[in-house]
């Protein structure tokens, strides 16, 4: 049996005292790609932010175990440095912060956490040049302010570039497909697929089945109203695509396929 990377047990969470997750269970093993689908407001993006440690959400019960350790008490930066990476649905643009400097600071934060020496500007530039190839990004993007004036596709490629650089153990892609045309979607998914290895775990959050043609999941979960209501194989995505999310309204319990 392969190693468990992430284990979420009975997770409940509030935002501003309103329950938003109502008992989520999820287990991701090394080498597995899990997808979470669901309508807007079903709680799927919330789940990704909670795993990354967003301070706006209050965990009211349950556990998140990452590589055998509870991370609920850990700061977002500790989670990141220990190998959890969240690719944002809406990556923030920060004028005045150079993309290159930002990535160097992030990379060095991780090295420091691992007890390694920080690397200098020149070595870092060589390193990042290699990674640019993964998402076919023009080096000129590094000189610009972080995500400022980037198109939707460029922002998402920049997220995958960060993923390539930080080499996470658990990658969470939060609606990485939103706002992408088909070419950008292909570049982004190719990037993710190139980085895939059997030691790592992946959680892909999406509204549409389309993304799953490019990043193939092993298991698909459907979230509704703060819970995973059903899980299954690839055929579940196709069923959702053809019948819409409405057919789930009639289902009372989980258990298609698996």
């Amino acid at each position, binding site marked *: 049996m392969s190693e468990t990377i992430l284990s979420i047990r009975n997770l409940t969470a509030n935002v501003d005292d309103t329950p938003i997750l109502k008992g989520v269970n999820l287990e991701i093993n090394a080498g597995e790609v899990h997808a979470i689908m669901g309508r807007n407001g079903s709680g799927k993006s919330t789940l990704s932010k909670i795993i990354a440690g967003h301070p706006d959400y209050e965990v009211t019960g349950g556990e998140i175990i990452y590589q055998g350790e509870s991370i609920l008490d850990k*700061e*977002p*930066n500790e989670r990141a440095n220990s190998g959890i990476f969240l690719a*944002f649905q809406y990556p*923030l643009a*920060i004028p005045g912060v150079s993309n290159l400097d930002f990535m160097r600071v992030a990379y060095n*934060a991780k090295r420091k956490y691992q007890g390694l020496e920080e690397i200098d500007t020149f070595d870092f530039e060589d390193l990042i040049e290699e990674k640019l190839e993964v998402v076919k990004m023009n080096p000129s993007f590094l000189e610009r302010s972080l995500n400022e004036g980037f198109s939707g596709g460029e922002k998402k490629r920049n997220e995958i570039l960060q993923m390539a650089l930080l080499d996470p153990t658990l990658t969470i892609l939060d609606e990485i497909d939103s706002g992408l045309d088909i070419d950008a979607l292909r570049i982004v998914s190719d990037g993710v697929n190139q980085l895939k290895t059997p030691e790592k775990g992946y959680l892909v959050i999406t509204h549409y089945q389309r993304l799953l043609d490019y990043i193939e999941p092993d298991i698909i979960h459907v979230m509704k109203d703060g819970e995973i209501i059903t899980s299954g194989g690839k055929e579940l995505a196709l069923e959702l695509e053809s019948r819409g999310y409405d057919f789930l309204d009639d289902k009372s319990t989980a258990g298609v396929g698996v």
Partner: protein
Amino acid sequence: MAVQIPFATISQVTESAVVEDIFLTGLLQQCQIDKNQPQWLRDVRQQANSWLSRLSVPTRKDEDWRFIDLSDLTQTKFVTSSVMRANGYSPLEKTENSRMVFVNGIYNTEFSNINGLPKEVYVGDLNNLPQEYDAKEYFAQCHGAQDVFTSLNTAGGNNVTVIWANKNTIVETPIHLVFITDGESESIFTQPRMLVVGETGSSISLLEEYTGVGEYFTNAVTEVYLKENARVNHTRLQEESKSSYHIGKTAISQERDSHYTINEINLGAKLFRHNPEVLQQGEQTESNLNGLTIAMEEQTSDTHSIVALTKPCGNTNQLHKCIVGDRAHTVFNGKVFVTKEAQMTDATQLNRNLMLSPKARVDTKPELQITADNVKCAHGATVSQLEADEIFYLRSRGLDENDANQLLIDAFAAEIIDRLPLESLQTKITETIKQKVSN
């Protein structure tokens, strides 16, 4: 209705009664006037003296001073000094041969060196100015010369530094003036004074720097005259000590097709006030005013600017940014006047404030007065905090909270710092801000 541009005027002064302001009189008595100065200069000083006798230190009842309190200043007794120590001044790269340093108001030959400047630009004391330059036409003749602190400087100031660029002279090396005050043993009063004249087609870069230790009061005045098609790139760096007071005036008079840019960086002083006042007197004139103020602890930092556009096709851009933390207080008032004759004006003004603490205070008052009917003018002000979502984004990439905050503060400041002329200066300021904000 004609636009009233609120530069201090003679009539405002002469119509007032004679008052005896103890603080001003006390300061003036400290000032030793050089006996060797020419008659015209004595006359100018005498006139300023007579204005001063009718003026008093402004209070919160004066509209332009209502956000700040000068009572700590006026209750302190200051003396002028002949001490010339200058410990710990670390000179900036690239201005080794174009630098004049003043310590407690006195020219310091040891630290100064202007051998790197061409002879087509005069840099030196007014008393040594060669005959071919007519300083009388300019000195203390700028708009607003009648205002109280400017009058005090004119009446009592001793060293006037003249920077005069001849016709079509282009000097790329920044001309660097450093005013260091040491108020460790006594509360010192200094009155730096500069007269800058850019003749037709000339182009110079000017770096004015204030720094010091201990308690003191700097009352600085800089007059800048730009002839046709002249350019001045002006950096004003205020890094005064934590217990000092600094009041400064920069009066700029521009003829047609001239370009003036100021980047002011205000980091120090317990109480700081700067009044940049621009008068565009010719067509197609451009004035850019950029400012960055960082105020922490109990600092008060106030910039009150005036830009008056009086001829067609003028252009002005202003971006003033403030970072305010602890219990500090920043003030911005930017007045832009567009007179009836100033058609086709293009004016923008923006004040952005970043508040780092709930106890900090920001007062902002952008003002536009337009009489012309075919102009493009925009102004605005924003007040914000560090964005929680931005901090989370950075932390989700492994930065700890301090580093994330620092990166965002640096980014806010960078928009102004990037406009400074020397890379060594940009690095120095970025580093200073980092230390100031994280303390």
